C-alpha cells in the first residue's frame, strides 16, 4: 500500500467537490480531488431546470427573505434555519460568480432571466435551457483546472473511497482504491465527503447515475458516522421508466407552463381533469414536489404532462434540449402529445448529519452536497440542489480552513485505527471486495435490497408495509451472510426503514397512511447511528434562527 501525505481529501468531483476544491485553492491550500470517474461523469451534469437566487430581475420585488421562507416552508420546517439563511443569503453572489465563470445563463437584452419553479411564488430560478447542471459543471471544471495546473488541486480521477482512517477519535486520513493500478492508497489529512446521493440502494429506480453506488455512505455508516432524516426521499412527480433507470422530465417544463392531468373514467370524450389546478388553484402544477407526488400516488391513475400549450418560442429558446430528449427516449413529441409520467426517486434529503459548519460527529470529517443532510428539510425545492452543492462545498472548505484541518502532517507509515468498535472485522475489506467483476451473488442481494426498499420506502407507507420490508431485510441479511461492503449496505438499508418506521407522522416527502397528520412534537431531525453493529435511533431538536445579521 502506498502512503502519501497532503492536507485535505475531497471525495467526489461533482458540483460540491469542485466548489470546495476551488475555495481551498483560492486560499492557496492544496487538496486532493478524489473521484471514481472524472467530473464529466458526475450526476451534477444531469441537473436540468436551474439554480435559485433572489436576483430580483423579473420585476416581482423578490427578496432573499422570501427565498429563505420558501425553502423553510418547502422543507416543512425540518431544515436548520441558520443554514438555510446562510444558503439563501449567499445565493445571489454565487449565481453572479458562476456568471463570471462564463455559464451561459439565459439572458434577454443582456439581463439574466429567471423562470418559475415549484414551491416558490416568484420567478427565482436562473437557467440554461434544461441543461443548467451541465453548464455549471463545464465552468467549474475549467475553473478548477487552473488550480490543477498550478499544483494546488491534485486529481485522483479513477479512485474509489474505501474507508476512513481514524486515530485518537479523529480523522487521520482515508483509504482509497485505484481502479486503474488496482491498488489501495492510504492518504492522510482531513476528509470532505461530496459523494452525492445513495442511488445504489435503489438501483435502476432513480433518475441519477449508477456511479453513486452508496458504498461510501455505507462504509461511513458502519464506521459510526451519524446520518439524519433518511425517511425523506424525494419522489419527483414527472419521471418516466426507461430501460435501466428513470428519465427525468424537468420541473422547468411546468415552470414554463406545463400542466398535469388525468382522463376521467367513463367519459365518452375522455375528458381531461387538471386535478392540481382544481385543488390548488392557478399555481397547482407548481406546488412543491412532495405535494404533487403524493397527490399523484393517492390518485392511483395514469397522469399525463401536458406541454402542448407551450409556445414555439419557449420550445426553441428555453427547452429545445428537453424536447429532443423526450422525443428520443419516449418517441413522443411533447409539443404535440401529452407525456405519461409518474413519480420516481430523484433526491435524498437525508444523509450524513452535518452542523452549520458542515462538521459531522467525527472531528476531521465533513460533508457537502447531496450526501449531506443540510438545507432541504423534509422536501427539497427544485433549483435548490445546484445551489446547495455549490454553496455547501464552498462553505465546508471555509469551515475546514477555519478549523485548521489543512496543516500538513507527517504521517509516514501511519498506524491505522477504526472509529467504531466492532466494525473493524467488517472493515477489513479483502481484495475480493474491490474486484471489478460483478459477482452474481452480490448483484442478486443488491437487487433484493432495492426491491425491499422500494416496498418499505414507497411514497405512501404505513407500519405494516415498513415492518414487512424490515422482516424481509432481516431474512436477507441472515441468508446472505454478507461481509464488507455488502454488509454495510444492508445496515444502511435497515437505517432507512427504521427511520421511516419510527417517524409516526406525515411530513414533506414522508407520508404515513396510518399517521396522516403532521405532529408538531416531531419537528425534529431523525438521527441514526451504528454502534457495535446495532443501529440506534434518536431525535434532535432543530436549532432556532439567530439574529440574522450574525452570519454572512
Amino acid at each position, binding site marked *: 500500500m502506498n502512503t502519501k501525505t497532503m492536507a485535505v481529501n475531497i471525495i467526489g468531483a461533482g458540483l460540491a467537490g469542485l466548489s470546495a476544491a476551488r475555495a481551498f485553492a483560492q486560499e492557496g491550500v492544496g487538496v486532493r480531488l478524489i473521484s471514481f*470517474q*472524472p467530473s*464529466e*461523469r*458526475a*450526476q451534477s*451534469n*444531469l441537473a436540468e431546470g436551474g439554480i435559485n437566487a433572489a436576483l430580483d430581475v423579473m420585476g416581482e420585488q423578490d427578496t432573499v427573505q422570501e427565498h429563505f421562507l420558501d425553502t423553510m416552508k418547502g422543507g416543512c420546517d425540518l431544515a436548520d434555519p441558520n443554514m438555510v439563511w446562510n444558503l439563501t443569503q449567499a445565493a445571489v453572489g454565487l449565481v453572479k460568480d458562476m*456568471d*463570471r*465563470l*462564463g455559464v*451561459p*445563463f*439565459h*439572458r434577454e437584452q*443582456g439581463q439574466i432571466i429567471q423562470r418559475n419553479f415549484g414551491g416558490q411564488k416568484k420567478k427565482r430560478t436562473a437557467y*440554461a*435551457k434544461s*441543461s443548467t447542471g*451541465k*453548464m455549471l459543471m*463545464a*465552468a467549474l471544471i*475549467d*475553473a478548477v*483546472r*487552473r488550480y*490543477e*495546473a498550478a499544483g494546488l488541486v491534485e*486529481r485522483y*480521477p*479513477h479512485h474509489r473511497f474505501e474507508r476512513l482512517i481514524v486515530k485518537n477519535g479523529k480523522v487521520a486520513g482515508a483509504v482509497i482504491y485505484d*481502479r*486503474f493500478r*488496482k491498488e489501495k492508497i492510504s492518504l492522510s489529512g482531513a476528509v470532505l465527503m461530496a459523494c452525492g446521493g445513495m442511488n445504489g440502494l435503489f438501483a435502476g429506480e432513480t433518475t441519477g*447515475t*449508477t*456511479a453513486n453506488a452508496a458504498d461510501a455512505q455505507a462504509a461511513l455508516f458502519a464506521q459510526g458516522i451519524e446520518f439524519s432524516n433518511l425517511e425523506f426521499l424525494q419522489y419527483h412527480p414527472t419521471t418516466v421508466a*426507461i*430501460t*435501466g*433507470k428513470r*428519465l427525468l422530465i424537468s420541473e422547468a417544463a411546468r415552470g414554463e407552463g406545463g400542466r398535469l392531468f388525468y382522463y376521467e373514467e367513463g367519459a365518452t370524450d375522455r375528458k381531461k381533469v387538471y386535478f392540481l389546478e382544481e385543488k390548488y388553484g392557478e399555481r397547482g402544477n407548481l406546488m412543491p414536489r412532495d405535494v404533487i407526488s403524493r397527490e399523484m400516488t393517492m390518485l392511483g391513475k395514469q397522469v399525463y404532462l401536458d406541454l402542448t400549450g407551450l409556445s414555439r418560442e419557449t420550445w*426553441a*429558446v428555453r427547452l*429545445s*434540449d428537453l424536447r429532443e*430528449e423526450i422525443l428520443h*427516449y419516449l418517441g413522443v413529441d411533447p409539443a404535440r402529445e401529452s407525456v405519461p409520467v409518474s413519480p420516481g426517486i430523484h433526491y435524498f434529503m437525508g444523509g450524513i448529519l452535518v452542523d452549520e459548519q458542515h462538521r459531522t460527529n467525527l472531528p476531521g470529517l465533513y460533508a457537502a452536497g447531496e450526501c449531506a443532510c443540510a438545507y432541504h428539510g423534509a422536501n427539497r425545492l427544485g433549483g435548490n440542489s445546484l445551489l446547495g452543492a455549490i454553496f455547501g462545498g464552498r462553505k465546508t472548505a471555509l469551515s475546514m480552513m477555519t478549523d485548521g484541518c489543512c496543516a500538513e502532517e507527517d504521517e509516514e507509515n501511519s498506524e491505522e485505527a477504526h472509529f467504531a468498535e466492532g466494525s473493524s472485522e467488517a472493515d477489513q475489506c479483502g481484495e475480493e471486495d474491490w474486484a*471489478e*467483476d*460483478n*459477482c*452474481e451473488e452480490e448483484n442478486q442481494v443488491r437487487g433484493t435490497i432495492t426491491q425491499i426498499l422500494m416496498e418499505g420506502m414507497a411514497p405512501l407507507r404505513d407500519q405494516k408495509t415498513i415492518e414487512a420490508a424490515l422482516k424481509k431485510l432481516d431474512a436477507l441479511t441472515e441468508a446472505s451472510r454478507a461481509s464488507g461492503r455488502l454488509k454495510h449496505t444492508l445496515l444502511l438499508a435497515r437505517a432507512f426503514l427504521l427511520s421511516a418506521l419510527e417517524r409516526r407522522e406525515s411530513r414533506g416527502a414522508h407520508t404515513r397512511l396510518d399517521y396522516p397528520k403532521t405532529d408538531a412534537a416531531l419537528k425534529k431531525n431523525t438521527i441514526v447511528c451504528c454502534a457495535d453493529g446495532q443501529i440506534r435511533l434518536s431525535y434532535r431538536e432543530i436549532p432556532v434562527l439567530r439574529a440574522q445579521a450574525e452570519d454572512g
Partner: protein
Amino acid sequence: MKKILHILRRKNAEAKPYWEDFTYETTDEGATVATALASTPVVWEHSCLQRRCGACAMVINKTPALACNTRLSEISTDVIQLEPLRKFPVIEDLLVDRSVMMQNLRRLSVWLEEEARTGSEGMAFEAARCLQCGLCLEVCPNFAAGGAFAGMAAMAPMSRLIARLSEGERKRIARAYQKGVYSGCGKSLACRDICPAQLPIEELLVRSNAACVWKRWKTAGSFTSVGD
C-alpha cells in the same frame, strides 16, 4: 430479441486479449448495449445511462459509440462485437484510460483567468455540452495520444472560452488553440458525424478558427445553432 455479445476481454494491459460470448435476451425495445452489458461480468465504464456523461464509449460492431446510446433493436446483426476504444490504453476489458484528454486541457491552459464577458451564450452553451467521451479522438485521422494535436475534445471546451473571454485573454487562448487544435486538424470532420452529443462541431470550429487564427473575434457572437 436475442443477441450475442462478442466481447474482446483482457484481465489487464499486459494480459493476452481473448474473445468471450454472452447471450442476452429481452423483450424491451428500449434495451441498449449498456443494458446488455450490465448483465455480464465484463468491466466497462458507466454512469448516467442516458448519453449525458460520456462514460460508456466503446467500439460497437467496429463503430465507436456510446453503449447507452445504441439500442439493441437498431442493430441488424445477431452477434454484437464489442471492443475497447483503440486510441487509449486498455485497463481491463472495455475500460480504457482516457486521462490524456484531461492532460491536454491542462497543457493548453483551458480556463479563464479574467471575468467572462456576456454575450455569445448560444456558442458557449453548445460548446459546454461536450461529454469528454473521446469518440471524436477515436475516429480522428490526426489524433494520437501524446501528440501536440488535442483534437475536438479540446476544441469544444476551448470554444466555450472563445465565446466568453475578455479581450485580455485573447492572445493566450489563441496561441493555445493554434498549437493544440488548428495546426493539427486535417478537417476530415469525422468527429462531426460521430459526436453522440451532436455538437455543431463544424460551426464551433469555423467560429473558433475565425477568432483565434484570423482575429475575427466578433464572429462568435453571431453563432446560430439549432434552437437559438
